[in-house]
């Protein structure tokens, strides 16, 4: 159980697996560099990312803005209906623009930032604490939450759960901001157990009610845009929660949840599923939970053990995970060494493929796995591949570009803007040697190594060679078309 993979089994394919799963993949030279390190050093290089500086600047607006809030308050108190409406319009537009910038900022960090594993963990936490802009409607709060996930990405579970609960976006998302002694709101109290830390069946309805009472007082200081504890709305009376009675506070609730043995099973099982692409067996989950508990609920020892383990590199795990839309886009850009399309296009693509960042479908987040693949998302992946490789605009509708159905005409402006967007495309000369470009067999082998890290099936390879053979003289357009075709296969959709 969880024995380290023998050094002799470590090779290019295993290094690629680690880079793909604990990050977003990379070009052959990155895979080779990881392969050369050997498994121990490779895993440490990935997990101990703090030694690599990340100088990414924050968005300019990523701070509290008391002046804007003051203005909003004044208009709302004294303004005419027209002024209020005008301000509302401006505010909506401002938040939409910032949200788009935020999505682009994060995708860029994943695609070219120096710490892909940290970003992959941020993406895990975003899916886990699935908070949506549809309700939160505040780009600063969403950025703050994203930064929280980055800061505590691989730290301590109890610290993260506590801070995530006090996070402004979460306070709005699960209505804790509205909870009070007189009217305790059970939304966060329920989800913190059901979805975040224990899973269904490991708490009672009474526990939900009592936790909601204990959590009262946790609220949002809207003027300062941060968490505040207000003792006057806290229910200080005795509560019985998870079998213990006392005058529990919100902090006590989090502490008692984490103290449940189930909490280690729950989060380690979910992490394994995220990285290995399938839920762990009961036995493996027990092993993972034991490692996690032994380290006092710190994630790093667990992650190190996971990425070193034989189980992580077994045949049923390798190349058997459906790429999420983000993995597909960011991974493609990294493998092909081409630019990430501008935010409007990148976000349009992943939204069309079913993963709108900062807008998960519901509090449970994205289902992942095979649910990413439907006939239409598959066709969209194949068509988006053409856009990425050949630098053409993808076939995006107004809805993909952020149009809202409840307001007529949403997204049309974006559609007009799209016409001015410049796409990059793949530079064939950058990723292939002159010899590879001149020889069809070498070309296919080189691209297989870059795109799949494993060979295509015989008949598929023949189909591809037939395509290349139908060209009298291979030019860059033909090679781009061949890359696009390789990305338009079932095999390219997994990692």
């Amino acid at each position: 159980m969880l024995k380290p993979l023998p050094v002799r089994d470590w090779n290019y394919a295993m290094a690629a697996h680690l880079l793909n799963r604990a990050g977003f993949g990379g070009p052959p030279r990155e895979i080779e560099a990881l392969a050369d390190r050997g498994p121990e050093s490779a895993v440490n290089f990935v997990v101990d990312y703090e030694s690599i500086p990340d100088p990414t600047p924050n968005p300019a607006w990523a701070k509290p803005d008391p002046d804007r809030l003051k203005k909003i308050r004044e208009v709302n108190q004294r303004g005419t209906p027209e002024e209020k409406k005008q301000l509302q319009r401006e505010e909506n537009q401002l938040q939409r623009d910032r949200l788009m910038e935020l999505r682009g900022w994060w995708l860029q960090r994943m695609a070219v930032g120096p710490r892909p594993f940290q970003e992959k963990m941020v993406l895990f936490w975003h899916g886990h604490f699935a908070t949506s802009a549809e309700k939160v409607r505040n780009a600063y709060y969403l950025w703050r939450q994203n930064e929280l996930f980055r800061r505590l990405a691989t730290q301590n579970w109890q610290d993260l759960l506590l801070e995530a609960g006090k996070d402004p976006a979460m306070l709005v998302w699960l209505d804790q901001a509205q909870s009070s002694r007189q009217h305790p709101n059970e939304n966060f109290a329920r989800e913190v157990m059901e979805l975040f830390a224990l899973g269904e069946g490991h708490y009672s309805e009474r526990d939900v009610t009592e936790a909601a009472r204990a959590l009262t007082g946790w609220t949002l200081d809207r003027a300062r845009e941060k968490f505040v504890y207000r003792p006057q709305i806290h229910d200080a009376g005795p509560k019985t929660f998870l079998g213990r009675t006392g005058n529990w506070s919100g902090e006590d609730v989090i502490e008692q949840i984490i103290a449940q043995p189930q909490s280690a099973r729950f989060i380690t099982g979910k992490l394994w599923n995220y990285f290995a692409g399938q839920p762990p067996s009961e036995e493996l989950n027990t092993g993972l939970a034991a490692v996690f508990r032994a380290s006092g609920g710190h994630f790093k020892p667990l992650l190190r053990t996971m990425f070193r383990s034989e189980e992580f590199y077994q045949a049923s795990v390798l190349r058997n995970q459906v790429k999420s839309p983000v993995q597909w886009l960011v991974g493609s850009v990294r493998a092909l060494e081409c630019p990430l399309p501008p935010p409007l296009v990148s976000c349009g693509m992943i939204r069309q493929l079913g993963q709108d960042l900062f807008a998960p479908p519901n509090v449970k987040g994205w289902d992942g796995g095979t649910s990413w693949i439907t006939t239409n998302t598959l066709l969209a992946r194949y068509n988006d591949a053409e856009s990425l490789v050949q630098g053409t605009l993808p076939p995006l509708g107004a809805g993909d570009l952020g149009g809202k159905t409840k307001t007529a005409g949403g997204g049309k402006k974006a559609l007009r803007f799209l016409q001015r967007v410049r796409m990059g495309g793949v530079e064939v000369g950058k990723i292939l040697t002159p010899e590879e470009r001149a020889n069809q067999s070498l070309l296919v082998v080189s691209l297989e190594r870059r795109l799949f890290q494993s060979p295509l099936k015989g008949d598929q390879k023949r189909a591809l060679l037939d395509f290349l053979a139908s060209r009298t003289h291979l030019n860059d357009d033909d090679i781009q078309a061949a890359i696009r075709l390789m990305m338009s296969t079932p095999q390219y959709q997994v990692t």
Partner: protein
Amino acid sequence: MKNEITLQTRREFLRTTVLGSSLSWTVPAFLANTLTALHSEAADSATQIVTGSDATILVVLQMAGGNDGLNTVVPYANDFYHRARPHLGLSGDKLIKLNDELAFNPALSGFKSLHDAGQLAVVQGVGYPNPSRSHFRSTEIWQTASASDRSEPYGWLGRYFDNACAGSDPTAGIAIGGQLPQAFFAKHPRGICLNNPQNYRFLSKGAGTEESYRKLNDTEMAGIPAEDDNSGGSIGSLAAGMPMQGGSAVDFISRTAMDAQMSSDKIRDIAAKVQTQAAYPGSQLGTSLKLVAKLIGGGLPTRVYYVSQGGYDTHTNQIGAQARLLKDLGDATQAFVQDMKAQGNLPRVLVMTFSEFGRRVSENASGGTDHGAAAPLFIVGNRVKAGLLGKHPSLAPQDLHQGDLKYNLDFRNVYAGVLENWLKTKSLPILGKAFEPLPVV
């Protein structure tokens, strides 16, 4: 393996019948019977085998934004109505009167014709307990048929596909639009969405690229196991979106790729060939319903279509904005019904509208209304129980809940009626709780 159809068989089946390039649009009954016999497990259970030619069809029409029910079906004789709406209250000869108390908004002439023909039901006062005034949340509640204090991951139509459509092809549900509606979210998604049939395909610029794409996605070429292999499950587990069940992710995607290829060919073929008879408005809704009419006319075995009309969030200057939307709604629906009649498909088709909430009884200061609660919805078809169904909610101030109408009928009773009486399936496993089915047909 007795009850299982191998991938090979299914491949042939799809190719030659439901989605393949055969000359016939519809599936001959003997093939449907063959399929049923081959899959007796399906025949024994509540599972439905689609036949394409005789199964009932549901068209769900979303009126997004929260339609003001009180100015749609107007209680024109009610004093409380006019007191609450001194500027927005509708009265006068232009109203399309249904009886001594209620009238359609003047813009709903399309609905008036349907009403007179006995093809329209007005279901009054529909809502749910503890209503949410958030667009996002209330839409989610309607789409997932959840209680307002619970979150459901899957949509009510998705659960219909999961529970009642195992064994059908990947186009059990088709949503016209850019995004799959939450109502279609399913454990084993069987719905597709398309904006423009021209984009629901492999697009390519270079010559020969599409041919190579077909070869690369051919399941035989990809070496996807057919017979004698555990990864090729029963036909139910082969439909698009089904979990791996022991097979690999690539096998699963390969099967979906095949479905995509064939359904895309079929849909484009139909969109190009099938002619519609009626004059639709040029609006998004009109275009959507026209496409639905073509797909139905082309014989797709789809059971549920989903179209959407946006713009009902009328906080300001409601009168003109809502009239334009309702005119579009009535005219587009009327054209669709004419088309179905001309095709001979009208007896198979039922249209049901919904909106996430109605609006506040009292008008606001900007010539509009704010988010409210209960509202009417509409059901259209020639087998519909026509006329006014349910009871209009009281407008008396003491009967309101925080200024909103109280619902008389839970929308899940309407869903139960549509599921039980129209789609002929048990509603309990889909709605998760017993709801008395509203007799809609």
